[in-house]
């Protein structure tokens, strides 16, 4: 009995005496400071980047590692509140609408053949957009959204999916009529982040410039999905959103638009990706001889400049060769005798950007005909290549968007994140982390996911740190950063 009592006394002593305490615990209020900011109700607005989209899909792990979610986790050290995300149902990605698949699962790196290659995960999506989240969400990033979509009423109307509405917004829109900005303002945020405008140039760029540059056209009814948004529209909508978000005195952070040329989607496929032997090259040259001569002949008549005619000469050599493309910016030509149209062909140069998707298209044959090789004997359509003329349209718009963002950040006294400079650094040698360097090299660079456009979780962690740094700087806060090395990058099947 005595034995037992002694034992109990010791046990009780042990339990009360044992918990060690830090002199200063990171979990104590006051260890980190929010400075002038108030993180108690943080709302994130933006597009796929804000949603945590990666590997060409929205999936659970991507959402958990979205930069707003990471930021909210760190804000929690400095008075931040709950952060609700419109979580999807699985780690597969992809969407259903009433049971019908409307978005594919995520991409994953497969080691099935000789070389690792990205494939779509062979599982079925389970997230159905007819299942509404049912509560207001803090992460209001909508994949695919352009700037004007965030103020568009009905953008979450399920009956408009495929035309005027967005399936991702359908999942958490408060009503069929509402807009993203209206739902955001209704939550009365104390703090917001806004990273929008990427798609206003990116969808044009990733589609190889098949859309139109709408600069000067403010009539949104005429805009197609692959068009470049007018910079004045951009500025007006941006200001409208900041007015709505800051109406109740909320503080916030805004980020500018990175160069499209800094992402692996445009830098992975080389301009000269076609290996040829001597005989193949000779045969191809023979095939293009008539075109080459025709163009030179027309230059002699002054129908096309000598310089352009030379640029249009198709020539293959033994070794790596540029692809043949249709370039709509070349002078339209036809045979003066027959009236027959002469195609606008030229070969790619280092200034052309071939899209990532083309890597699995160039070299394939048309109808199994070995004489009909895409990119070689069969010219590539506009959608596969972003030409220098198209790049200029993109960068003109981007320059104006970024000037607007910078100016409005100043006007509204917001934290400003130079995402353009950061992504440029990733592309130019990389940003070091504790287990290597994040670069824009496809797959192995660890910064970009397999779609070549969206960051990996490591990349998003780096983005979150950039936001936190800028916010700390602007509002004299001391929110801790996070370690990108602790976040995943490319997933292997």
């Amino acid at each position, binding site marked *: 009995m*005595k034995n037992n009592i*002694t034992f109990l006394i010791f046990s009780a002593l*042990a339990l009360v005496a044992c*918990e060690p305490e830090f002199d200063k615990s990171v979990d104590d209020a006051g260890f980190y400071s929010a400075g002038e900011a108030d993180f108690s109700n943080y709302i994130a607005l933006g597009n796929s980047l804000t949603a945590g989209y990666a590997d060409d899909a929205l999936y659970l792990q991507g959402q958990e590692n979205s930069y707003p979610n990471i930021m909210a986790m760190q804000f929690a050290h400095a008075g931040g509140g709950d952060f609700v995300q419109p979580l999807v149902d699985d780690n597969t990605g992809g969407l259903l609408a009433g049971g019908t698949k409307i978005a594919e699962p995520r991409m*994953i790196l497969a080691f099935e053949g000789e070389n690792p290659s990205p494939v779509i995960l062979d*599982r079925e999506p389970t997230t159905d957009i007819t299942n509404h989240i049912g509560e207001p969400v803090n992460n209001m990033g909508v994949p695919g959204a352009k700037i004007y979509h965030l103020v568009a009423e009905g953008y979450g109307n399920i009956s408009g999916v495929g035309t005027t509405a967005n399936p991702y917004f359908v999942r958490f829109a408060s009503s069929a009529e509402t807009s993203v900005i209206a739902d955001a303002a209704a939550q009365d945020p104390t703090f917001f982040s806004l990273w929008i405008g990427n798609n206003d140039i990116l969808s044009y760029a990733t589609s190889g410039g098949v859309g139109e540059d709408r600069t000067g056209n403010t009539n949104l009814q005429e805009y197609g999905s692959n068009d470049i948004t007018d910079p004045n529209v951009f500025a007006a909508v941006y200001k409208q959103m900041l007015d709505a978000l800051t109406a109740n005195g909320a503080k916030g952070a805004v980020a500018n638009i990175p160069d499209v040329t800094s992402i692996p989607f445009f830098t992975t496929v080389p301009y000269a990706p076609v290996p040829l032997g001597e005989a193949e090259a000779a045969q191809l040259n023979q095939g293009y001889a008539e075109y080459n001569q025709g163009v030179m002949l027309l230059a002699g008549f002054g129908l096309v400049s000598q310089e352009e005619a030379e640029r249009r000469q198709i020539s293959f050599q033994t070794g790596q060769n540029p692809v043949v493309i249709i370039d709509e910016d070349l002078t339209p030509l036809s045979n003066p005798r027959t009236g027959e149209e002469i195609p606008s062909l030229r070969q790619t140069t280092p200034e052309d950007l071939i899209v990532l998707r083309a890597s699995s298209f160039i070299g394939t044959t048309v109808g199994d005909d070995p004489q009909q090789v895409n990119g070689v004997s069969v010219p590539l359509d506009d959608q596969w290549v972003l030409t220098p003329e198209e790049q200029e349209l993109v960068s003109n718009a981007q320059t104006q968007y970024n000037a607007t963002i910078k100016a409005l950040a100043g006007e509204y006294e917001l934290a400003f994140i130079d995402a353009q400079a950061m992504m440029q650094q990733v592309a130019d040698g990389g940003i070091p982390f*504790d287990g*290597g360097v994040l670069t824009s090299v496809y797959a192995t660079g660890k910064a970009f996911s397999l779609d070549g456009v969206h960051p990996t979780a490591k990349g998003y962690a780096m983005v979150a740190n950039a936001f936190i740094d800028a916010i700390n700087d602007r509002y004299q806060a001391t929110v801790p950063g996070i370690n990108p090395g602790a976040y*995943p990058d490319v*997933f292997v099947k």
Partner: protein
Amino acid sequence: MKRTYISVMAVLITACAYAGGYRVALQGQKQLAMGHTGVAVINSAESVFFNPGGISFLEKKVTISAGVSPVISNIHLQNSRYGWSEKADNPVATPFNVYAAVKINDWMSAGIAVYTPYGSGVEYPKDWEGSHLINNIELQSIYIQPTVSFRINDKLSIGGGPILAIGSANFNRNIDRTTTNAEGERANVTIDDSGVTAWGYSLGLAFRATDDLTLGVSYKSEMKMKAKDGKAEFRNLPSTALGDFDNTTFNATLPLPAELAVGASYTIDEKWMVAFDYNRVYWDAYESLDVFFSNGQESHNPRNYKNSSVYRFGLQYIASERFTLRGGYYYDESPVQPGYFAPETPRNDSNNFTGGLTVNISERFAIDAAFLYIHFDEVDATYDHYQENGQNVPFGGTYKNNAFVPSIGVSYAF
């Protein structure tokens, strides 16, 4: 009833690292109460462990001691740069000890000792920030040491015996910081082996310089616990990796280092005795934890421990026929060098405070109780030798640990 109790405890054994490295210095309630001194204290059957040379100086014909020491240990770790904090939820470990010594004749005694000198039980939250180094570990060892002791003359006695060590290990960590399967579950590996045995020895010498002053020295040899064809279970690997990892086994060696103890005890008067011990633990045997998997994969985890010292001080006061009180203190140097502070045994130098008492229920039977409080100073430390792409990736933060060990035992002598 008592027998049942002890055998239940024996089944439940899990030893916990609380001293330098994974040494668990809880080898007797009387001596623990005196700062775990004892190489020159001839008090009870605990001497079979503390100094096998001393048991032939025991006065009683038969002495038996047995006890158990539940360890409640706490590890708190925080990283202020990234703002995270974690607590290890360590299972309560129960090192035990059973000793018996029998006087065969005037000049020879025999003894047996069963004890758990090394072990570890640490459990972090699954997939925590340091999960690429450890999720959980459970190391156990039982030493079985038959002993003989010879009394050379009235002043000098020597002794020793072989030690059979039986060990088991179970260790889980994530294979790196990021790999998951398609469901997003972190890839991890568990290595598990039990019934690993090794042989060593213990030697001791006790010298009664005067009636009041006793000197002692003892030595336990190093033992290398070699796990061979243990089970290695990989979970949540990407499916294209599965083929190489089915039915994997592993080989690994964990050294249980040699330990030298020298000390003195001085009987001041009928009531008071003091004891000093110095221990040297030859931790430099623990250079690296290298795991060799049957699929050809290898995991090298440099430890680079250094030899360490423990300075012990103990005091005994015989208050009455019924009560004996004890107290002690020891300073335990960590064998862990800067940059090798791994979260599986996050031990810096510690200050240790002990106390306890014996209640003599009868002439033959006594209850021994002791407690130990281990205080570690808050320390900023990292483990720098985890690698990604050939680059060292440090892991760490601020550690604040402690442990509390109540210990209870019984002695029987006639």
